């Protein structure tokens, strides 16, 4: 903020364009932000955490992956809320792949967020990024699970090292 004031003081001729760019941007954000917040609030209250744990804890296979993605995309709050849920899932014996997929989709795909991405970056950008992200997140989840299992086996049998 200070830098902004100093810069504008030193270069007063730029003031007009800086202010008008900032203002347009602000208005554009304000058109959608409250609505997105309301949606996040509604989901946050109506989809309780224990429900997520209940469903994701016992499903596996392709069904588990689809479930992990579905539950991850529900707009239920910031990432740091997802960590305790994931920890509860580990205790319940959920697969590591599903947990990683869940955390990652929670982090980067949120339904209202996708509307905002569509609004600002266009349909093809949003759809392509969404598709690629889901594909790569699934691969990553399965890979991390393999690595963890391999590592656990290695450390539990020290004679083979």
């Amino acid at each position, binding site marked *: 903020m200070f830098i902004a004031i100093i810069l504008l003081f030193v270069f007063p001729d730029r003031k007009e364009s800086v202010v008008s760019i900032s203002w347009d941007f602000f208005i554009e*954000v304000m058109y959608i932000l409250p*609505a997105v917040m*309301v949606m996040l*609030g509604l989901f946050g209250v109506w989809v309780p955490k224990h429900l997520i744990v209940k469903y994701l804890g016992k499903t596996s296979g392709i069904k588990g992956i689809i479930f992990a993605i579905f539950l991850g995309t529900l707009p239920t709050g910031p990432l740091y809320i997802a960590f305790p849920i994931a920890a509860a899932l580990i205790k319940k014996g959920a697969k590591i792949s599903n947990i990683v997929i869940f955390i990652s989709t929670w982090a980067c795909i949120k339904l209202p967020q996708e509307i905002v991405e*569509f609004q600002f970056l266009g349909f093809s950008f949003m759809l392509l*990024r969404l598709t*690629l992200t889901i594909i790569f997140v699934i*691969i990553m989840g399965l890979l991390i699970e393999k690595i963890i299992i391999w590592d656990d086996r290695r450390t539990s049998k020290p004679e083979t090292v």
Partner: protein
Amino acid sequence: MNVTVIIINLIAVIGLLIAFVKDRNKAIQSIKMAGKSFIKMIPMVLVIVVFIGLLLGFVPPSQLSKFIGEQSGIGGVLFVGVVGAVMHIPALISFPLAASLLEHGASVSAVAAFITTLTMIGISTLPLEIKELGKKVTLLRNGMSFVIAIMIALIMGAIL
């Protein structure tokens, strides 16, 4: 104002109305939650708004595209990816930010890398993630997320 803006606000209003009919207390609770996160986000919005104004007002598109445009190649994509991983901006605000960078000469790859690392990797939430999920899973997840973010970015740059 365009159609998306109208639709998203309509959905929110209808959602709220249904919520009020179903359960008044829960509806009020969600509005409170919405208000709280909105207020929490406002300072960040203002910082980004001023940042964009300055960036676009002072840095000409040719300069910007030299660093994160098509000419910058994979170096620019990696650079923006790291910035996205370290920064802690709500994803919601990153989209308009990305759009204005795109308009002013940034490449599709750079913008995609920025959004993806920004959302998937959390340097600031690392300690919490390690505490809840363990070191191994956390480091693997964040490390691999960076790699796939760059891959996603490059594929998107090639297609779009």
